[in-house]
């Protein structure tokens, strides 16, 4: 842990410690955070953050993400302050984001924020004297989800390199699949896109693949033969409200449901991931199948977020390895 002498360098150093997007992270940084999360998986309960205050500011409700971050902070001994519902904050009285962030910076050592506006976390990270962790900013980024996805892929495959990753469902609006695609560019993946025409992977992301030497294949069918090539089957929700043509929705909705018999030719190492909540895109019968991994994936969110919080506070992997506060 570093101690900074002057206020200026302290503020600058903390600004750089913010976790706003994963797209900028190097392979080394991603692997470093995975190593950290592995330590937390071994020993999640510690007093490493005793005496620290973590703020969780949810300008848009997201119970799942908030519980995961708050659990991560609590299991490391930090105190948590914040709000879960924007209706109780003064933002509705016209207070600017800046004012809220500056006020909370006086109380907390790190701010976890979710906001409905795109770029809100980036802006907060530029003005706040404490690090900002982006827990989702509108349709833009949700980097802690990507971090837990990477952690889970590594955990199930023993590596992030040279994998066949199948993305299924809403590839147009699904920010998790976009972030995952960009973060995987360091690891020589082959992506497979399986989506209805209306929700196909947008052209800029295909271009991104071409520019970064990422191979991708687009499939029309979603069946046992296609799934046979997958190491990771990443399912997302196909939401009715995304369709301009509801007839089209009715026509395609069942085509992207994963059923147990579709796993008949799957590789042993293949694992099914889903950012949750699931509605009906994965048949419940699959939950007991050894390929199902979405609940473990959600649990990994805890370890990934413990790593993200500690890294933003300047706690190093070395600090964690030498940590004597394990409960």
């Amino acid at each position, binding site marked *: 842990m570093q101690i900074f002498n002057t206020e200026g360098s302290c503020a600058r150093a903390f600004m750089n410690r913010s976790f706003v997007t994963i797209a900028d992270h190097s392979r080394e940084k991603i692997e470093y955070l995975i190593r950290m999360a592995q330590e937390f998986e071994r020993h999640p309960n510690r007093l490493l953050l005793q005496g620290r205050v973590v703020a969780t500011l949810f300008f848009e409700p997201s119970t799942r993400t908030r519980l995961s971050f708050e659990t991560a902070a609590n299991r490391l001994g930090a105190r948590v302050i914040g709000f879960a519902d924007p209706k109780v904050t003064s933002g509705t009285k016209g207070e*600017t*984001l*800046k004012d809220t962030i500056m006020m909370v910076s006086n109380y907390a050592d790190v701010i976890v924020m979710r*906001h*409905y*506006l*795109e*770029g*809100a976390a*980036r*802006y907060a990270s530029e003005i706040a004297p404490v690090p900002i962790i982006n827990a989702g*900013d*509108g*349709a*833009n980024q949700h980097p802690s989800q990507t971090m837990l996805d990477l952690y889970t892929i590594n955990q199930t495959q023993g590596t992030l390199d040279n994998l066949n990753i199948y993305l299924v469902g809403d590839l147009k609006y699904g920010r998790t699949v976009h972030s995952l695609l960009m973060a995987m560019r360091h690891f020589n993946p082959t992506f497979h896109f399986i989506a209805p025409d209306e929700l196909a992977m947008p052209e*800029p992301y295909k271009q991104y693949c071409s520019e970064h030497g990422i191979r991708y294949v687009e499939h029309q069918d979603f069946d046992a033969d296609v799934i046979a090539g997958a190491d990771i089957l990443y399912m997302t929700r196909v939401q009715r409200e995304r369709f301009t043509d509801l007839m089209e929705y009715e026509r395609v909705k069942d085509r992207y449901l994963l059923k147990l018999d579709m796993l008949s030719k799957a590789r042993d190492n293949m694992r099914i991931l889903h950012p949750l909540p699931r509605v009906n895109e994965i048949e419940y019968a699959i939950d007991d199948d050894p390929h199902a991994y979405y609940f473990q994936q959600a649990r990994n969110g805890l370890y990934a977020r413990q790593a993200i919080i500690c890294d933003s506070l300047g706690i190093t992997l070395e600090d964690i390895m030498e940590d004597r506060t394990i409960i």
Partner: protein
Amino acid sequence: MDMTTNSQLHTTPLPTREGQGGGSRSLIVSALDHGTVIDHIPCDRLFEVINLLHLDQMTSKVTIGFNLKSHKMGTKSIIKIADRFFTDEELNQLSVVAPNVTLVIIRDYEVVEKRPVVLPDELHGIVHCDNPKCITNNEPMATHFHVVDKQQGIIRCHYCNHEQDIKNVKLV
């Protein structure tokens, strides 16, 4: 403000002393001994440039040539402004409204600088983000764009990552 709308105006700025021996009438109108010439302005951008630089409020002499012949562009416009030099910020704004104009700075009859005004790598507080859900449109703050493709004129919002075409941008 002199307004000349045909090719009687000299299109290259000759720093000739006004009324000096033998200069033609057109040369006298166009000559600038101290100030700024903005050349190669696309004709459809001329009035935006006039508005941007607040030339209508200028008290010094301003000469504007419109629909002039140009080898490079077919037709072009040119503005000559006496006794006025622009800041980098103003030139950055100019590069957004009219990409690749030529800037000529004349001081005491000498051309001291002649260069194209290209888009900078970053645009701070110059243009609006076209994404209504962008933080910059909902918070009192300056916008910030990265110029990702100078040739195509593509800029990306530093905050929300939306890309837009420089031709369609609105100035702040």
